[in-house]
């Protein structure tokens, strides 16, 4: 499969889905969260918003490495063959200054309802610089896209 083909599948999936499962960890203890996500147009990063008092934020301050799962399941048996799931791995960091403003504006394009949340000074825009996407289809068909290569 060509890189362009995979990127098309990813773009379509990311446009259709609003929520991602985020994995963080601290002291070897994994932790999962549901987050509203937004992917950069060039697919090199995925962004989510969180307040700084949350467990997920404390975890990724301690260890920036995270995984995200974004998928198209609709909670039916047919999901096993029909759903598409993507796991993204990479390192996270809080966007600051002009980068935060740009990330927030792009994010609100996708999640306009979260404006008050994103505008709060207590809300961090977290950028995950993705190194690899793992695309799963037809139950067991898995391909990797190494973004930085």
């Amino acid at each position, binding site marked *: 499969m060509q890189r362009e083909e995979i990127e098309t599948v990813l773009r379509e999936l990311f446009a259709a889905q609003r929520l991602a499962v985020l994995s963080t960890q601290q002291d070897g203890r994994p932790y999962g969260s549901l987050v509203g996500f937004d992917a950069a147009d060039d697919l090199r990063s995925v962004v989510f918003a969180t*307040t700084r*008092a*949350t467990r997920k934020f404390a975890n990724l301050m301690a260890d920036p490495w995270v995984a995200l799962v974004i998928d198209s399941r609709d909670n039916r048996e047919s999901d096993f063959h029909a759903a598409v799931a993507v796991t993204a791995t990479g390192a996270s960091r809080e966007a600051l200054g002009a980068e935060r403003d740009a990330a927030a504006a792009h994010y609100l394009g996708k999640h*306009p*309802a979260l404006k*008050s949340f994103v505008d*709060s*000074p*207590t809300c961090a825009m977290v950028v995950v610089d993705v190194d690899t996407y793992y695309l799963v289809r037809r139950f067991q068909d898995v391909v990797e896209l190494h973004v930085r290569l």
Partner: protein
Amino acid sequence: MSRDVVIPLGRLDPAAVDTAGGKACALAALAQAGLPVPAGAAVTTAAYAQYIAAAGLRERIALELSRKDFADMRWEEIWDAALRIRNLFLTTPLPRRLRDRLARGLGERLTAGPVVVRSSAPGEDAEGASFAGLHESYVNIRGLDAVLEHVRLVWASLWSDAALLYRRELGLDPRHSAMAVVVQELADGRRSGVCFTVDPRDASHGLLEAVHGLNQGLVDGTIEPDRWVLDRDDGRLLEHAAAEREEWVRPTADGVRVAPLPAELRDRPPLGDDEAVTVYGMARRSESFFGRPQDVEWTFAGERLTCLQSRPITTGAEAGDDRAAYLSLRRSFDNLATLRRRIEDELLPQIGRDADAMAGVVLETLTDDELQEEILRRRERYEHWIAVYSVDFIPFAHGVRLFGRLYNDVVHPADPYEFTDLLGSGPMASMQRNDELESMAARLRDGEDTDDALEAFLTRYGDTSWGATTLAAQRETLRHLIGELAAAPHGTESQRRGDPARQRRDAGDTSAPEEAEERFLQQVDESEREHAREVLDLARASWRLRDDDNVYVGRIEGQLLRAIAEARGRGTFAAAELDHLAAPLHPTVGGLPAPSTGAGSREATAAQATASARARQSADETEPRAVRARQLLGQPAGPGVAVGPARVVVTPEDISGFRAGEVLVCDAVDPSMTFVVPLAAAIVERRGGMLIHGAIIAREYGIPCVTGVPQATQQIITGDRVSVDGHLGIVVVG
């Protein structure tokens, strides 16, 4: 369903209530039946739906209303939610395509103005539920931008506190509601009124009311009309009762205003007898068209009689609802100005004299019988002042709300509470007391003795209620608090972040509130500026009183408790009876049904006792908790962020151990708790609302505050580490 965003009244299907609303359909029916109706058009619910779908507004409203179970929201919280939602409408522009379609649909005729922009809710004016008066209408609007802005304000009024409460009463889900709008040429009526084809007092008569000027003054009850009674059978005039004609309502540059009636019109009835007969005839034509008695609003623009509205006559009893109670939530400026004079000139001096007189009684010299009588008298005074509190002091809080609306309409601020920056300039009673404690702390820091100052303080404020006793008995607690203030004078200061007004004050920029006031006034149309100044002045009085009234009523309660403490000390009084006489009372918002889930007082007291016992434990002494709250959702009531150990205060005794930098967690900030506010890193309250006492004090001190956290005092335990996010209204535990 038609997707047109604008439909002219002449082409509107009178049955299309779902898309155009009851008012537009009734006007369309009248126009199509040949009655004289001003030209206009309906902005349909399709336009509303497109607007709230864009910019995520639909979900933002839903997020706002789902912060907590709607049934559990106090009216103050609903008002706050309504204010925030209204601001979403004010700050969210129309999508360009929708704006273009509305401009095209309304055309030159309905945008060059002057026009009226009126609500036309589906279901409104229909049989059964009546939404009359719950939603907004605006008169004398000119220009496309102004018309479209007022269309948005009418849409927003679907989410007003009164409309939300009324829908809750009817069991309607507000999230499924939609709103249409009528935009109509303004008939610049020199003489206007209302006609009931059947007189509510006598079914064989018709009733006609008329005033000089526009009929807004008549409809909202500020201007007394002339009345004519007519015979239903032959339309003959039976009786004319003249009014004291002193004022009229006239259009101004951007609205309408009550003005003195010119002398030459005072002796002249608004209608001649023959005109009264003509108006009644038109109303009867409407009745025969609709097939039931009608309530018709009309006006003479020049010599041309125009029908403004016609709807079936409903009485309160017929509608079977408390709409009147919800409508009374809105108070006019004049009403509040009168209330202010009563409070400032009569009630506050009276309550002060009452408390002074009680303080002057030397209880120790009274016989048991005299003491018994004194206690009963004080109980009676306490109950009296609590009633005054409910009837006069609480409603006066509307002064703040009135200004908040005006400010937001003019400025469209991102923060809907920005207006409070302009309010907090006067000295508040509890802050004055705290300033005295701060100065004692400063002297203690310099190694000076503060005993005399403390005694003087106790003499002045000793009768403040403090749980079952008074402040007079809290010498050691005050000593401790002064010590805490002295030890950490700046530790608390550093927590004060986020509140711009506070930052400006801290930076020594005392002119900031005046500058903010000036900036605001510059944005007000010149003809309205004096009025805006008056509303601001009223709001400042209202803001101050939210603190002071607590302190004053606290003094009366303290004097009652002082007498009861004397009786307990003698051992000759029945303890149960004294407990009964010492029971605290809670003011209520007049006439409004409380949320159905409120705990009864007995359970509440039991829960309070348990919580108090727990509050005195600390987090590491308690059993491991299987279920723990991690993140509690309330309302943002004071901006800023703070982290600190919680101090749960259920009874005033819990205050005695308060340390600088702790987070005050309580049901509601009462007068005794205000002493520790300067020490607190943040405040978390169970009682909800942005304009409640605790929130106002927190904002004055620039301390982050979250209110309306259900079960705050049970979910949080003293010693728990809590992060208070006053921007988003979130409390993180642990």
